[in-house]
């Protein structure tokens, strides 16, 4: 039996529908708790990108690119880079590049602690996740535009 709609079979689609949100949430958790537990911006960003790639593999590229298009992914990546750099430059308010400019560092083992480190993690995760997704989407579009000839 052949299904006319793009993507994989019904089993894969159902399981993807159940798990993709959990994968995205796990990535966000890894990013936000990067200063408390093992993990951080790089690992969490890759997991966030993988949740979108999972969606693209199971449902076909239109569904995933409707959620977040390739152009928007590269805009988000640039935003992450600019955010990371501006956090670094804001350190000059306290003296030097990458200065941890929050005076009150908060209590250890709490979510809102450690000054700029969570913000840097969020910026890096935006950059890594959107960048990997943009590369994957570009490769997919390249292959599919090659196939049409």
């Amino acid at each position, binding site marked *: 039996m052949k299904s006319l709609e793009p993507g994989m079979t019904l089993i894969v689609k159902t399981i993807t529908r159940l798990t993709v949100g959990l994968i995205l949430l796990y990535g966000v958790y890894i990013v936000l708790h990067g200063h408390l537990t*093992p993990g951080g911006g790089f690992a969490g960003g890759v997991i966030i990108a993988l949740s979108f790639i999972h969606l693209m593999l199971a449902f076909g590229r239109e569904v995933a690119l409707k959620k977040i298009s390739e152009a928007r992914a590269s805009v988000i990546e640039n935003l992450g880079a600019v955010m*990371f750099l501006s956090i670094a430059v804001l350190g000059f308010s306290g003296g030097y590049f*990458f200065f941890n400019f929050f005076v009150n560092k908060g209590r*250890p083992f709490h979510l809102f*602690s450690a000054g700029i*480190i969570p913000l840097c993690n969020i910026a890096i995760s935006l950059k890594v996740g959107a960048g990997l997704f943009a590369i994957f989407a570009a490769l997919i579009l390249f292959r599919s535009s090659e196939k049409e000839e």
Partner: protein
Amino acid sequence: MELNILLLFMIFSAIVAVQVEDLLSSVIAVGAVGLGLSLAFLVLKAPDLAITQLVVEILCLIILIRATIKKDLPFSTSGRWVFNTVSTLVSIVVFLFFAYFALRQLPRFGAPIMRVAEEYIASGQEKTGATNLVAAIILDFRGYDTLGEATVLFTAVIGVLAIIRKTGRIKNEES
């Protein structure tokens, strides 16, 4: 003083690399800039950066030379085998001689020199407030390294998008 000489050397090599006509000479001048940067890192007491810069520079130089030369490099595979063998043996002996003295200075296995890392471990948590010491080091103490890594990733993404998009756009316009 040495730093100023190195900077002048790098600026001069960069001007040569831009101005010279021959592509191979230009590539070698770029390699000279990289070598000067590596020595500058060494003068500024950042040996890890110097090693990285040297390795990456050599790799890039080899790739670029391979890309610019059309014909294969001439390798002498016949004749003068006595000279070749003797010079190879001499260079191996010289290398082992200096490696003996250099390797004796290395710390014993399991007892690393922890001059900077001790400070990070002792005061990392109270200085940054982060309980994950890895995050504290890569995002606070060694923020420059992380910025460099992020820049590497950024450049890779931009390169992939630029190369692939151009091909796709031309093909779309033709069809």
